[in-house]
């Protein structure tokens, strides 16, 4: 614009920060919570937000998927997508649990390998995830196939692997220390640690800055000296390892692992990221936004339960909210870029 060019001619450009984009999503969260609060007083005659027990359960319900969403957010910011997280949850739950069984159980998968220290099944699980992520990332970065296809392949393969691992049999009876990982509020604690680490990584390290740059314009990133391929591999390893962590937590919480664990988790995780303002076009999003997106998910689920509405409505409304979030975001972007 003409006036813009002249108006600012003398002003030395400064690195002002604008209001964080997460503010909008936070307002949406507050709005939704207040709606449930009001409906609560009208229909149930009690508070929705004032009940600490309910809030705890609410966060607990979504924090496992939240762990996945932290990884998926990074992949989406880089312009990719990861559909394999849910299957990795299932596969890693199985593998990890098979090394976490208590000696008291007579029919362990590896009878010779029971009562191992908790670090063993956890590390094995995380390494399995990292391997799956490496395969995803390598395929995407070096064979140039679309992330959608590469991770779709992993999604199907990992699920098949989970079923094959014990020919469909569930694995149970973990050691106490393993079960502790899923007990009480542990999933929330693990989520908070993971979210904090990657919030810092995305905001204050080269890892994060490169991720945004690659998502915004991979070619420009490459010419600017970023090793785009290597970075992509890293990102997919991170995403799959976090999915693996979620798998460990899920198995520990249920004290059993089943091949069907984590089905559709990838889509919920993507939805959390997207509601939280992560752009599927790449280059935009944040861990804080995704965390708020996660809480919005939780509020909706427990809000509907609280109002004693059918689970069917929950899903339908969830679908509407996902789409609405992206519509609002697209509109906001249009306004920002004149």
């Amino acid at each position, binding site marked *: *614009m*003409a*006036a*813009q*060019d*002249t108006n*600012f*001619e003398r*002003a*030395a*450009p*400064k*690195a*002002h*920060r*604008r209001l964080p984009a997460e503010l909008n999503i936070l307002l949406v969260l507050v709005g939704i919570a207040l709606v449930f609060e009001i409906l609560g007083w009208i229909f149930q005659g009690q508070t929705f937000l004032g009940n600490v027990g309910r809030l705890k359960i609410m966060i607990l319900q979504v924090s496992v998927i939240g762990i996945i969403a932290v990884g998926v957010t990074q992949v989406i910011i880089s312009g990719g997508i990861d559909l394999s997280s849910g299957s990795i949850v299932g596969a890693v739950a199985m593998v990890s649990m098979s090394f976490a069984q208590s000696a008291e159980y007579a029919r362990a998968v590896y009878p010779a390998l029971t009562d191992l220290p908790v670090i063993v099944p956890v590390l094995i699980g995380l390494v399995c995830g990292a391997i799956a992520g490496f395969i995803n990332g390598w395929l995407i970065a070096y064979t140039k196939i679309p992330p959608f296809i590469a991770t779709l392949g992993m999604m199907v393969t990992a699920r098949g692997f989970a079923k094959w691992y014990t020919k469909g049999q569930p694995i149970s009876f973990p050691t106490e220390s393993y079960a502790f990982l899923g007990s009480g509020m542990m999933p929330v604690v693990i989520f908070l640690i993971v979210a904090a680490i990657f919030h810092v990584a995305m905001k*204050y*390290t*080269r*890892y994060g*800055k*490169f991720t*945004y*740059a690659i998502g*915004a*314009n991979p*070619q*420009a*990133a*490459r*010419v*600017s*000296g*970023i*090793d785009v391929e290597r970075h992509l591999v890293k990102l997919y390893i991170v995403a799959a390892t976090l999915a693996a962590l979620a798998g460990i937590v899920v198995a520990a919480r249920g004290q059993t692992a089943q091949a069907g664990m984590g089905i559709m988790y990838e889509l919920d995780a993507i939805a959390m990221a997207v509601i939280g303002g992560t*752009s599927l*076009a790449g*280059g*935009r999003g944040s861990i804080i936004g995704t965390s708020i997106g996660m809480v919005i998910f939780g509020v909706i689920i427990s809000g509907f339960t609280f109002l004693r509405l059918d689970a069917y409505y929950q899903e339908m409304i969830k679908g509407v909210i996902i789409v609405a979030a992206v519509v609002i975001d697209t509109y906001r972007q249009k306004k*920002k*870029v*004149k």
Partner: protein
Amino acid sequence: MLDGQGARARGVYEGEYILEVDRVRKEFPGVVALDDVQLKIRPGSVHALMGENGAGKSTLMKIIAGVYNPDRGEVRFAGRKLDIRTPIDALNSGIAMIHQELNLMNTMTVAENIWIGREPKNGVGLIAHGEMRRMTQALFDELNIRLDPAGQVGDLTVAQKQMVEIAKAVSFNSDVLIMDEPTSAITETEVEHLFRIIRDLRAKGVGIVYITHKMNELFEIADELTVFRDGKYIATVDARDVTRDDIIKMMVGRQITDMFPKIDCEIGETILEVRNLTLPGVFRDVSFTLRRGEILGVAGLVGSGRSNVAEAIFGVRPAASGQIVIEGQTVEITSPPVAMRHGMAFLTEDRKETGCFLNLDCIENIQVALLSTGKVDNRGFVNQREVNRLAEEYAEKLRVKTPNLAETVANLSGGNQQKLLIARWLLTRPKILILDEPTRGIDVGAKSEIHRLITQLAGEGVAVLMISSELPEILGMSDRIMVMHEGHVSGFLDRAEADQVRVMELAAK
């Protein structure tokens, strides 16, 4: 040619102007984009519209195309007030626009692109492909365009795509054809062809609005010209009555006496030597040397391999054979990070495709190359305060005009985007600076600022390799000129012996 495609004004309308923009005003929050501007186009004439970026040209085009409504004033077409809501309305009423970014569907054929939405049907209502191809061929014959109607648009060059767009405009029997910087990405010979077609259309009575930054073209093709500055109408003059300096004066409100402020500076020892660089099918046996403080201009037609050589030297797409010697050592440049470690920087040709992160802010755009050198971080953690300080310093030095550096880069003008990209590279303190079309598509003011900066850098001892399609820029800025032709070096010229004719002889021989 086409029956029933709207009532055409040509030959029917007797008024003096086919398109009249009359005292149009358009405000955006906080900005007056257009302040009582006018533009009057005669049928059968080429009318150049000029102005720096941000002068309001694109806003006016959007008003004519119906994207915006003017706050005041009106646009009249053939004497009637224009009411256009969509681009197809515009086409149907006889106004065709060819944008800088071409709007063609790459995966469809030439004929399909031209007749989309108006395909001829056969007896049972299916598309008659044969008929469509014949119609396209007839159109091409009329315009002297040699293209295969059944060819894929994606396989065409930019210039050929432009021809398709023009043919499409002609197929609508348009009375007014608006072209936004049509020559910014095509070669000299293609420009000739384009001008021949424009002259043909003019002879047929079409009124042509020609938006450009290039003075030479203006004098070659335009009958009249209108200048805007900062959203205001400055003047409409006969192209024969003005000089280049007059126009620049009108555009910037001040005379830029020295467009190419090349100062002689000390040329030091050889820093880069390229020997027999070859990439089969793209370029072969390219050899040259570059010295500290020297500006080596690279001229040649688009497609002569100039940009590919630059990409090879910087490791974007390495050469298959040949040697690159930096400061006496033979080096293997396999990727951009390697090139950067050897002190190179590369401003790419295409600002949007390979330069800017349009959705990110200025700081994020400036810092990226510096970050990837790994010089401003502590175990991966970025010292953002230091980076911001540097970014601010360079943004100020380069006179980047933006409200603040947190502004999204997509909202900046082309000239300012280019300055940010230059700042990005200067932050890495390069010893060898490769510039590919450093001033393409940016306004006169920003252009001369960038030229001054390049000279200044050379003065500080930076070796500059500057590729440009603008001969005056090459001639004005370079110490030496390397000319490329079809993938090989066709000659070198010294500053003293170089002129337009010599360069063109080497480029097109």
